[in-house]
């Protein structure tokens, strides 16, 4: 047991050293060797200073980092929330009821191979560059992931469990809510997490193309004026928010789907 603990500490040290080494190498190549100019590849210190600066100043893209962040999160949560609210029940209904499956699935299969962000140009033409078009793109992207995973989850219900329900005289509703949905919960959560990833990606794409605020807008503007330090700050912020969202959803999953192979 003690041996194992010692080993874990050893590996943790290696991990810390590895990250530190990469940052040191980054600093060395850019700031000491001057391998690339800082206008192309900024060093770690410059990125850090830019981060601190961007928290206070609105230049050069018209808003602070927090303002961009908030704008992005608002749209993402709106589109994602709608997608999950429609997608999960739809997936469950398709898997539970043969007739829903027969009529809805062909239509669903039709839009499924189209990545959510391919709709961006159409929605921008129809609804402008405001919140509606972006939320719709995110809605479509997360809808697909939610439907696919909820559908698979419900389909995994063991028939024997349903028979047990039949034997004890469960109604169809009871079988759905007491047997099938609990069985499907881990898959439903997988879907929700995949959907969150696609939602965040689609949002960044939409903001890159046409927007007036948001993190995607910020990095696109920074490219136009050649400020890679701002781009890297924006990318790290995008990554951090994605990671935080995912961690929150994971916590909810552990709470709701107790012990059901929630890793």
């Amino acid at each position, binding site marked *: 047991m003690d041996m194992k603990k010692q080993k874990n500490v050893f*590996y*943790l040290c*290696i*991990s*810390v050293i*590895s*990250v530190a080494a*990469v940052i040191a190498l980054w600093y060395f190549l850019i700031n000491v060797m001057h391998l690339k100019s800082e206008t*192309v*590849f900024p060093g770690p210190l410059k990125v850090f200073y830019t981060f601190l600066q961007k928290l206070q100043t609105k230049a050069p893209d018209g808003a602070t980092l927090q303002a961009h962040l908030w704008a992005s999160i608002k749209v993402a949560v709106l589109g994602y929330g709608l997608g999950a609210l429609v997608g999960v029940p739809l997936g469950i209904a398709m898997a539970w009821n043969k*007739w829903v499956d*027969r*009529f*809805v*699935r*062909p*239509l669903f299969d*039709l*839009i499924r*191979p*189209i*990545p*959510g*962000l*391919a*709709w*961006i*140009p*159409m929605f*921008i*033409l*129809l609804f402008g560059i405001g919140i509606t078009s972006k939320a719709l793109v995110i809605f479509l992207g997360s809808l697909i992931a939610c439907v696919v995973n909820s559908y698979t989850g419900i389909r995994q219900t063991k028939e024997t469990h349903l028979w047990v329900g039949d034997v004890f005289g469960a109604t169809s509703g009871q079988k759905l809510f007491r047997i099938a949905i609990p069985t499907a919960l881990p898959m439903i959560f997988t879907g929700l997490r995949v959907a969150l*990833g696609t939602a*965040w*990606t689609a949002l*960044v*794409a939409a903001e*890159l*193309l046409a927007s007036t605020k948001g*993190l*995607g807008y910020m*990095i*696109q503007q*920074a*490219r136009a004026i*050649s400020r*890679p330090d701002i*781009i*890297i700050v*924006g*990318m*790290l912020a*995008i*990554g*951090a928010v*994605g*990671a935080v969202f*995912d961690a929150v959803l994971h916590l909810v999953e552990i709470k709701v789907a107790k012990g059901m192979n929630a890793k």
Partner: protein
Amino acid sequence: MIKKKNISDKTINVACACISIGAFLFLWYWGTAFTKLGMLIPGPVEVLETVTAGFFGKVGRHSILVHVGYSMIRVMIGFIVGSVFGIVLGLLMGWYRIAEAIFNPLFRIIRPIPPIAWIPISIIWFGLGENAKIFLIFLASFSNTTLNSMAGAKNVDREVVNAAKMLGANERQIFTTIVLPASVPSIFAGLQVAISSSWATVLAAEMVRSSEGLGWMIVAGMNNNDMLQILSGIVMIGVVGFILAIIMRKAEDILCRWNKSGN
């Protein structure tokens, strides 16, 4: 008796699919031909005509097939390089604890950043040409395959490994004859995700900066207020996405024939 029932079930499915898709097409046609919606969105007949015309004529500088070719070549190069790197790194991280300790923290910093968020910085680093796009697709396929190969190598049955050790297999033999084949189903799951993520990424990259490809086609449609071009682009994007998914599934069927649960 059973066979007969199966056939009729299939006929019902096909009939329902025809009805629902037919109803959708009819609604689309009716809505665009007889209401004011027609001012905004072209009908299905016009879209079909534009697609067929695009095959022989030109959209922008090339025919639709050439645009598809451009997008596909970008995806293929980036996807192949990215997945080779991803599979190697993922297997190493999944099997050797030391490799995991070194690379996993770095990987976990990079992974939450969607490939699309790399678009601005890749343009600064690699310019507007092909390299930037291939780099993005490399990233998209790399992170997905790494994650799944790692999970695959981690979940190798310990008893099989111990049996091999007992029979005197060395480290290299265990890795190539047990870990590698046992991870194949998981690797393929990663490749499936990677190909659809690459497809979405190439579209985004082409939408931001390009002068050919399907992503260019829809974004040029947006800039010229040409809804027909956007919709025919979306149709082609769906068709190609569908074909890519089918190819991957067939390859998996052939290579993982031994794996009964892997479907």
